[in-house]
């Protein structure tokens, strides 16, 4: 993330970063070592991500808001919705999304969404990573979009359901309440903000993505990678990137079928987010839906990068993300699109062995 970019001077964006930093400090279950386990987003009422604090979950933020619009009545002031469901937009069950409405009639309208990787949601293993999973329920409990607060009143039943289904209920309660408070406060702040701030961000975003791929028109490159499977066969990723009529096409249709068992399947929202993360950072663009709209992602249904309900997806933000982003970085570098960027997120962690891996030295 380059802090010298112009939008870092935008007060609306800095509010998001402040909220992001606040949550990073106070959430108790946020223990996985880097800031990408969190995001704070402004999403408009049509579901467009206006701006996000990080680029790692852009498509997920869009998908979560769309699911909420389908599943829950129109949000009122004081309402707060929670979901962790990968088939409602979340990257995996550990990620909890909190969505609060921005007051109607304000410049932003829409929603504030906050997501964080929380401690535990039941299932077979503490922490919800299970290489032998054949379906999503073996990984943990699904919380489909549901109002946690209604007009400012906590829905006790929803909170108790979430707590009871976690091995770390008090941590979950603390974190969800903190996320809800942060989202609600930010919703008020954004609602009251100067409309020109949002207009400025939109303008910067549109500017970056006006004609970013002109230099690569007609060029194609294909990259191949492998996603390690702890149980069963490894999955192949075939990533063909080409610029076609000014659009960036990422064709993943040659990749493996979805795996069962296999906790490394990815939903299409996840795959789009992985790709958008790379593109946004290489172009130094505002982290917004413009990045998603600049991408034409093609992945076969029921494939490892566009899996179907109810396949497990617990490892998706790790192994598959790393493979996809690495291949896409390489492809864009070859096509001369954007610039390499430094990844500040920590890629280091102590050696781990995931229970159930077929290999003694699990590459994870």
């Amino acid at each position, binding site marked *: 993330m380059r802090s010298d970019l112009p939008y870092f001077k935008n007060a609306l964006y800095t509010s998001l970063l402040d909220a992001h930093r606040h949550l990073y400090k106070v959430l108790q279950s946020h223990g996985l070592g880097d800031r990408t386990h969190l995001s704070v987003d402004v999403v408009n009422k049509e579901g467009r991500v206006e701006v996000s604090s990080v680029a790692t979950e852009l498509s997920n933020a869009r998908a979560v808001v769309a699911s909420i619009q389908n599943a829950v009545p129109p949000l009122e002031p004081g309402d707060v919705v929670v979901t962790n469901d990968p088939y409602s937009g979340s990257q995996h069950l550990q990620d909890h999304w909190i969505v609060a409405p921005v007051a109607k009639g304000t410049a932003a309208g829409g929603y504030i969404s906050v997501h964080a990787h929380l401690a535990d949601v039941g299932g077979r293993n503490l922490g919800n990573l299970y290489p032998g999973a054949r379906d999503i329920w073996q990984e943990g*409990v*699904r919380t*489909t979009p*549901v109002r946690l607060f209604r007009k400012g009143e906590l829905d006790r*039943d929803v909170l108790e*359901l979430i707590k009871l*289904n976690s091995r770390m209920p008090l941590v979950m309660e603390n974190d969800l309440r903190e996320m809800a408070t942060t989202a609600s406060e930010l919703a008020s702040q954004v609602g009251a903000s100067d409309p020109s701030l949002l207009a400025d961000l939109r303008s910067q975003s549109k500017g970056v993505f006006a004609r970013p791929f002109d230099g690569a028109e007609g060029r194609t490159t294909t990259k191949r990678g492998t996603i390690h499977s702890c149980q069963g066969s490894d999955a192949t990723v075939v990533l063909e990137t080409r610029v076609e009529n000014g659009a960036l096409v990422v064709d993943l249709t040659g990749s493996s079928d979805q795996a069962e068992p296999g906790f490394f399947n990815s939903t299409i929202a996840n795959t789009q987010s992985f790709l958008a993360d790379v593109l946004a950072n290489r172009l130094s663009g505002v982290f917004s839906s413009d990045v998603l709209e600049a991408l034409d992602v093609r992945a076969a249904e029921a494939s490892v990068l566009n899996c179907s309900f109810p396949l497990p997806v617990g490892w998706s933000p790790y192994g598959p993300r790393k493979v996809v982003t690495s291949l896409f970085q390489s492809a864009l570098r070859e096509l001369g699109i954007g610039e390499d960027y430094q990844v500040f997120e920590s890629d280091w962690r102590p050696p781990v062995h995931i229970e159930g891996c077929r290999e003694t030295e699990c590459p994870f």
Partner: protein
Amino acid sequence: MISAITKQVIADSLEAISREMSRVVERTAVHPLFQEVHDYSTGIFLFDGTEVSLVARATALPAHIFGSLLAVQALVDVFEGDMNDGDVFLLNDPYLGGSHQADFTMMRVVRLSDSSMVFPSVRAHMSDFGGVVPGGYNPDARDVWQEGYRIPPIRLYEKGELREEIWDLILANTRLGETLKGDLLAIVGGCNVGGREITRLIDKYSADGVHQGMSYILEYAAARFRTEVSRWPDGVYRGERILDHDSAGNRDLKVAAKVTVAGDRLTIDLSGSSPQSPGYVSSVPGTSISNALLPVLAVLPDDIPPNSGILNQVEVIAPEGSVVNPLAPAPVMFSTTAIGYEVADAVMKAFEGITPERVGEVGLGYCLCTTFGKDSRFDDELYFTIEYGNAMCSAGGTSGTDGWGAWPATVSALIMATIETQELQFPMFYETYEYADGSCGAGRWRGVPSFVMRRTVAGDHPAFVNLTQEGARNPLPGYVGGAPGATSYAVLRPGTPEEEVITESVAEAELRPGETLFTFKGGGGGWGSPQERDPEAVLEDVFDSYVSPEEAKELYKVALREGETGRLEVDERATQGLRSA
């Protein structure tokens, strides 16, 4: 004040309403576990402002309906002061009023006054509720989260309006969404019909009148109970039952029961039972207490209504941290049967010294077989079923009656699904489903024979089988000198090079199409000495192949010979010689 006759009419009306609720549930449920096997119970509970009472019930499994007392209590603990007519509540959590997550308890509120309420309730076994293994029975579970979705007491309907987001949340945590939806609607229907009929009763007799009717039947049962107990000899009586294993490598788990009769008071103390287990057998208080009360009800005269009038008279002590009262988050899924029925058997053993002519098998010696997979006949749809062919038979002999049917009377609300239904709904082909030869627990009144099943996987996909076999070392006991039942076991792929004999547990064993599961479930124990059995009854058992001529001679001391027509008959003189030797 209303008359005693009117009070009895009200009490009988509540029983009738319970039965009507039961019919609604039975006729509208979806999964065969539910609508065919009847793994559900309906009842009506009263909260009078201070305590919760079971007033009436129908089609009830004791572990369900007595355990539901704690469910209603848990509901009142959370929501008292915030419950309205038309509210419907749901829970399944074993540590918050439930038994195991499979049993969903739904309760509707009908207010009698500011402080008192009536709850028509249904507890029913649901087919799937997420978790690691379809159906929830996970022999490898080491905590309760590995068994399935946990539901604390929550409000599902608010003043008659469905809370749709909560409904969706529950349905998101099952693999069988359409099935669970249908089954939940069935129990909602049962509760709603109960609520409607209770409201009509209130309209007819007034809220106070209905309350009086309820109090009357509770007091009647309590008085009858005290009279019976006061006839029993004072003293301390002990019983014990051992469970083979907990599926986690621990063996011989003990349930110890000390029953104390003092005047018209009865205490059942389960102290001395094994510590709670890492495996999925530890039994929460709702299950343990229900099963401790089961033998009490079994030895009482049949005409005493089994309501809280009785239950409140019995003090049950279940020490915390034991296999009969585990601390969360111990897994519990298998405990409704084992250790649950081990509690019942241990208490019944103690009753041998109190009412020997009324004792007999109450337990199941339960062996579990669940199966799941994809059914190629129905677009590879996921299926899940409990195989009761590996669970029956267990009825023991009692004074005056041989073990009959499949399960003891205490569990006879359960009905076996037909083979035809099983084969229609699940990709299986049954080759054998019958009593085993030569396998009865011997006694003056013998136990029901053991049961054998041979089932082959049909369709194009493998079937995954979870088996937990109990009773390989500790079969169902006999009573008053009767012999125990036979031991149980199962065989995967019998007669093939991959044959595997199971005497404890196996999780997610894969059986390919055409492969077979064989199970042998030991039957019930006998009652009384086999040498006191009528020789002609032994001869009939030989004709039925329940007893071989050799067993007749060895166990029953009955000599048989070929008669003039070539037909076997009792050799009375030789028999007399054998029995007097």
